[in-house]
Structure formats: structure tokens, C-alpha cells
């Protein structure tokens, strides 16, 4: 009798329109993000349409969001797993310095890349161990390591900007392939990888389980300690990648400039994209839409000459607004 019911209601589902199915696939949340994005585009388009829609500016937006995009995606994985990584911005600063120093010392771009990724991973490992085995709250732990990583970056670089004189390495930041900047290609590839990982892989699904309910995850045989440490290592490596991209774009390694405040933007994008800070909820597609919104907002505010301080104000408000909306949704379901 009940299996009949199952079948009957399935038929009903199929009978619904194609538009309903599209809504279901994308999710109500992502659609509202698209709408928000469209509204921003219309606003800035009508204010500075001449510049805003120029291909140069659109490329600028694309370039601007690459680094943030990588960080927002890794932050999404961290939040889905029930954690938070505030140290990512500092880790990016640290890795730009180490990458630049490695290239300066060896002259080899490969050495720079390896140094950046390794140091990023190491930073993540430190976070993961403090949080998992030291049982320190993730916010507090990464707030602490954020200061430490910045400090180390300053000590290593003596507070100076370290120039990179490798054309091969600079190509990553300014080169083009098939007319599109290499950076944009890298964003696309990492996005596909992140999406497949989080939404489709068994490990990704276990991360949802871990963040959704750690007790359930443990009863189900998931080694939650190993997962937690692994998630932070992943976040560190992603920050290392972002650091390499930043260094390649600016042609230098710098302890603060360029990486400060990235954690705020990454967390904002992830939460805008539907991450619940309690964990267990969030998607890569949502995070990318969140990144696009922030990218357009940043770009539009510059075009319409909003003073820097007000830009900060807007970004902070956006984060809080996103959390308020997320909480509201959570309490309604």
C-alpha cells in the first residue's frame, strides 16, 4: 500500500512543469542570489554603464574574484564540516612571502609553488591539530593563528615587499590562454574540482555528515578527528594556492597588503552562498554566486567612487545581513 503511495506521488512530481524542476535543481536560495546579482548589475550598469559593461572591466571583475573564489570555496568546505577558518587571509600573506623568497633564492618558479603550497598546508595542519586535539574553539584557534601567521610573515620578510623576477611565474598571474586570463581558467578548474569533491565524493558527503551532526558521523564510522584535521589542511593548501596566484599577479610577496580582509570576504561569500554556520549546509555553486556578488559590489563601489572606509562598512554589513537571512531560513524550516 505504501509503496503504491510512493509511486503515485512520484508521478505527481514528474507532472510538474519544467520551470518547477529548474527551481528545484538550482534551489530557491541560488535563485535569490542570481536575482540579487542581477539587481547589483542593473544598479551599477545604470550608474556607470559606459565603463561597467566594457570587456576590460568585466575581465577585471573576473580577475578580482579568482583569489577570493578559491578561498570562498575552501571556506565553504570548512563551514560545511562544522568549522571556521579565520586565518586564511594571514595564511595567504604568509605564502606570498614564502613563495617570493623561494623564487628569489632558487630562481625556480616550481620551488616557489611548492613552498607556497607546503607552507599553506603546514599552517592548516597547525590549525587542525589545535582545534581537534587541543579542543580549542575554531574561531578562537584561528583568530590566534591569524596573528601568529601574520607575525611570521613579517619576521620572514622583515616587513618588506619581496619582488619576484621570474617571467614564467608571472605568466600565471598575467598570462592568457584562448583569450582568457590564466587566472580565470584556474578558478574554473578549481571550482569544478571543489564541486565534484564536496557534492559527489564520498569524502565530501562525509563532511556534510560531520558538520550536520558529529555524533551521528562518529556512530557511522567516520573518523571525525582525521576529517577535521584534513579539512584544515585542505583550507591551508587552498590558501597557499591563493597566495601563489596573488604573488603571481602582483609580482611580489607581501605580508599584509593584498591579503588583509580576505577572510572576511571569503566567509561572507560562503554564508551568502547558503552555508549555515552550525555546519552541514552549503554548496560550492552558492559560494561562487556569493563571490560574484562581492566582486561586482567591490568593482561597482570603486567605479562609483565610494570612499574606501564606506566600502568596508558595506562589506561588514553584507556579512551580517547574510547571516541574519541564513538564520531566518533555518528557523523557518
Amino acid at each position, binding site marked *: *500500500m505504501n509503496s503504491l503511495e510512493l509511486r503515485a*506521488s512520484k508521478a505527481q512530481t514528474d507532472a510538474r512543469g519544467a520551470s518547477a524542476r529548474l527551481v528545484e535543481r538550482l534551489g530557491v536560495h541560488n535563485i535569490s542570489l542570481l536575482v540579487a546579482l542581477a539587481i547589483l548589475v542593473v544598479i551599477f550598469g545604470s550608474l556607470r554603464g559606459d565603463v561597467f559593461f566594457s570587456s576590460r572591466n568585466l575581465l577585471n571583475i573576473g580577475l578580482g574574484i579568482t583569489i577570493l573564489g578559491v578561498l570562498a570555496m575552501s571556506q565553504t568546505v570548512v563551514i560545511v564540516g562544522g568549522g571556521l577558518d579565520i586565518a586564511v587571509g594571514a595564511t595567504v600573506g604568509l605564502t606570498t612571502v614564502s613563495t617570493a623568497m623561494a623564487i628569489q633564492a632558487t630562481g625556480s618558479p616550481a620551488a616557489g609553488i611548492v613552498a607556497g603550497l607546503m607552507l599553506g598546508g603546514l599552517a592548516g595542519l597547525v590549525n587542525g591539530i589545535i582545534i581537534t586535539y587541543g579542543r580549542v574553539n575554531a574561531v578562537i584557534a584561528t583568530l590566534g593563528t591569524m596573528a601568529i601567521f601574520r607575525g611570521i610573515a613579517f619576521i620572514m620578510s622583515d616587513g618588506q615587499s619581496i619582488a619576484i623576477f621570474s617571467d614564467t611565474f608571472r605568466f600565471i598571474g598575467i598570462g592568457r590562454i584562448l583569450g582568457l586570463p590564466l587566472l580565470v581558467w584556474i578558478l574554473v578548474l578549481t571550482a569544478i574540482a571543489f564541486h565534484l569533491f564536496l557534492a559527489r565524493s564520498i569524502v565530501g558527503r562525509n563532511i556534510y555528515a560531520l558538520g550536520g551532526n558529529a555524533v*551521528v558521523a562518529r*556512530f*557511522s564510522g567516520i573518523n571525525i578527528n582525521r576529517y577535521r584535521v584534513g579539512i584544515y589542511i585542505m583550507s591551508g593548501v587552498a590558501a597557499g594556492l591563493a597566495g601563489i596566484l596573488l604573488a603571481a599577479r602582483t609580482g611580489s610577496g607581501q605580508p599584509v597588503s593584498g591579503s588583509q580582509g580576505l577572510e572576511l570576504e571569503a566567509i561572507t561569500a560562503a554564508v551568502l552562498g547558503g552555508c549555515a554556520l552550525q555546519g552541514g549546509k552549503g554548496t560550492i555553486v552558492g559560494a561562487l554566486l556569493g563571490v560574484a556578488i562581492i566582486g561586482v559590489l567591490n568593482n561597482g563601489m570603486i567605479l562609483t567612487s565610494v570612499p574606501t572606509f564606506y566600502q568596508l562598512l558595506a562589506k561588514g554589513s553584507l556579512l551580517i545581513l547574510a547571516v541574519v537571512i541564513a538564520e531566518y531560513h533555518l528557523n523557518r524550516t
Partner: protein
Amino acid sequence: MTQSDFFSLDGISKRFGVVQALDNVSIAFRPGEVLALVGENGAGKSTMMRILEGVFGPDNGTVRHGATPIVFGEPRDSHRAGIRVIHQEPEIVPNLTVAENIFVGELPRLAGVLLDWRKLEERTDRVLATFGMQQDMRPRQLCGTLGPAQRQMIEIMRAIRAGGRLIAFDEPTSSLTDDEARRLFSVIRRLREEGTSIIYISHRLNEIIDLADRIVVLRDGRLVDDSPAAGASEQTIAKLMVGRNIADLFTRETWRSGEQLLDVAGLTTDRVSDVSLRVRRGEVLGIAGLMGAGRSELAKAIVGYDQRIAGTIAMNGVPVLPNSPHAAIVAGIGFAPEDRKHEALLLFRSILDNASLCVPDKTSSFGFFNRRKALEIVSPLAAKMSIKAPNLDEQVSKLSGGNQQKVVLARWLARQPMLLILDEPTRGIDIGAKAEIYRLIDELAASGIGIILISSEMPELIGLADRVLVMAGGRITAELSRPDIDEATILKHAMPQSAPAPGDHIQ
């Protein structure tokens, strides 16, 4: 519908997406009457309670008081009107004390701002005394330290101390042991004598026969029967609920058990001491005890969730690593915990995701989830257990309580462990599905799987178990074998004798 001067429901309908949860239901409640509301899992009972309480409104129809339609914007409105609902899943705040949880919203104050602890404790003691619960919890004890049964009692005490003209109990006894249930029944009878109108929802039909003056049966959201309780039997109620005859509840094909499977020796954790037990293939080992006896804790110790202090566990003679649920699963042990909401289910994930959680190997290709494979495994199980849902992508949080329980069982059936530990597997499950689960236990045992069945329902243990271990105070106090398993003997050994008072060892 006859007009009464009390609360009534008039033509109530409610739809969730494709599910018609309630369909034109009318009921008039009467003061001083216990109305039992019965129906299969997902029949719409809890939905009706939520409408009555004002959690959400009906799509159609009205709640009335006398002839006047009333609209509750939120539960606070219905509380003011004298309606109280005790929910299926207790809502308590774990880091507040027992006293604060019972009197939340009406805490006595000193000078307007400070909490008057003396008065609060006095009042709490008085409430605890009404239920004979002084031994089980103390006013200042944190609720996080309480088990599901005690939490349920707190939920009940909270509703009753506030008074009310209509009090609804949504499966109050599903997590209570017989002893607590009896105490609850005497309170309910007293309330009835005082003229309170009671709605009583339960899947335990013997309780209904015991307690009810009138029985209302829901099937698929429709009211199919509303008649006096006099003369009703479990069979007649079951038939009205399910729409067909329920065959014999307890069946065991064979009582033949095979070679040694699980061997636990001297197992000790913070909550169980020196437990030794053995399970053979094809054997059902029942575990009985009162609340707080350490039965669930024993299960958590065996599956490596609780820290093992001493003792050994072996499956098929091979030692199982301590403190690793993963190692236990790999060794072939499965565990369906009692507290489905906190320990078993990912509420925001789908039925499919939840049911396939422990079989990543069978539902993946190259490390990636393979939906088709997962469906092939889960669909037949869902059908076999009659999980009622629009489809397998439905979020588990939207299922009715009993159907959530079935999802937990489906997870372990998919895994096919060698030893399955079931902690209160029929909690909140309707009689049709119960029969189904008993048949399943028998089937699993017949196929050579060993089963540990933790249950507070005596008939279940007596009807299904080859042997029963009785626990009290974290220890095993007796081992009974068929055919010497009976209620009196179990109870005799379940009473904590020299053991400390229940409430004390929980800290």
C-alpha cells in the same frame, strides 16, 4: 458536527507539498474525557496537535471554542487559551537545570530581577513529588545529564504544572519504561477527574484500552472512526488503523543459534562496570532494565563510542580495537541508537543520504557517490519497511517520527552487519510497522545474524529473545533463558538494590 461549548476541530485540512497530512477532520473534545488518537506513522496525529497548538494554521477548517472560531498565531496564544501539547520529541534546554526547564517562562523572582532559587527549588520538589520522581532527578541537576526518559518526564511536568483545560500527550510513553508510564497514567487519571480534557496519542494499544474513554482513528489524514472505548480490543483498533488484520505480532521461525559471534569480557566504561556477555549467530539477546540502568551505555561501549576503561571485545574470536566506532563497523557490528534525532539522523539530509551513510563502499564508484547504486540498495528497503514519503529525496526532518525510525533501520539493513544492536527499535512505530520489524528481526536471526535487542517493552523481549540479560546500575544482574523469561523475574532483577539511587551515578 454537534455543537459543544468546549474546544473542537471543524473540517480541518492540511497539506505539505504532495502529502495530504489531514483531510477534513472534525473532532469535538470534552472536559473530563481521555480521547485516544491512534493511526499509523504519518497518519497526521502530530500535525493535528501542531494545528491545535498554533504552530501553524490549517489550510481549511477552523478550531473552535464553543461556537466561536479561534485563531492561534503562535503557541503562546493557545497556551493562554488553556491548550497544552506535550511533544513527541522533548524540547528541553540541556545546559539549564531541571528546575529551570520545568518552570521556564514562569521563574519566581527576587526583587524583580534575581532568580529566587529557594522558591524555585520548593516548587520543583513539589512537582517532582506529584510524579514520584524525587529519586530520579534533583532540581539543580543539569538536563544535559538526563536520558531520554527523564527528558520526556520534564516535558510532561512543564506542561502540567502550567495547568490547562486541554492537555495533549503526543506519544508520551515511547521513551518511558513501564514504571514511569504507570506514574504518568495515575497523573492523567487525576487530571481527568479534575475535569481536564486529555488527548492521548500512542502506538501502544494496551495503554489506549487501559486509559481511553473515546478512541479516534486517523488513516492517511482522514478520520475513519470516532467511538467510545468500551468494548474495543487491540485487534479491532489495529484493524481500523491499518485497514487490514495484523497477523501474529511475535514470530520466531527458529530458535537455533549457531557458533559464537560476539564475546565481551569485563567491559568497563564510565557508565557500565564489568559486563561480560556472548552472542551466537542467529541468536537474539534481549537486554532489559529500568531507565538509567546503563543499557544504551552498554551498547555505546560495545561499538566503541564510549571510552573503554577495561575489558575485551572480540568478534569471531578477533579482538575489536577500543574507542573506534569505525573499527566496530569494520568488524561487522551495527548499532541503531535510541535517540534518533541526536544520534542517528542527519535531519537536513535526504532519506537516501541517511540510509546510505554506512555503505559508502556499495554506493560509490571511484570514490564518488553513485546515485543509481544507492537507489538500488535503498529503494527496496524503503518499500519493505513502508517508509511513507513522497520520494527518497525528502528531507528526513519532514518525516513523521515513526518513519524517521524506519530510516535508521534501513541504514543498517543496507549495511548487513554480522551483529546488529537495536536500541528501542520500535520506539514510536505503529503496530503494522512493528509487526514488520519483528518479522525482520526474525528474518535477520534466521539468516545467521546475531542481534542484541535493548527494549523497555516486556512483550517484545519475552516474545523475541532467546536470552535476556537484566541490567541495573550499569551492571548485569541476571541472565534469563527461554522459556524462563517473564515479566516478574525481569522486574525483580531490574530493581536497583544495593546500587546507588538512579540519578546519582549519572553525573
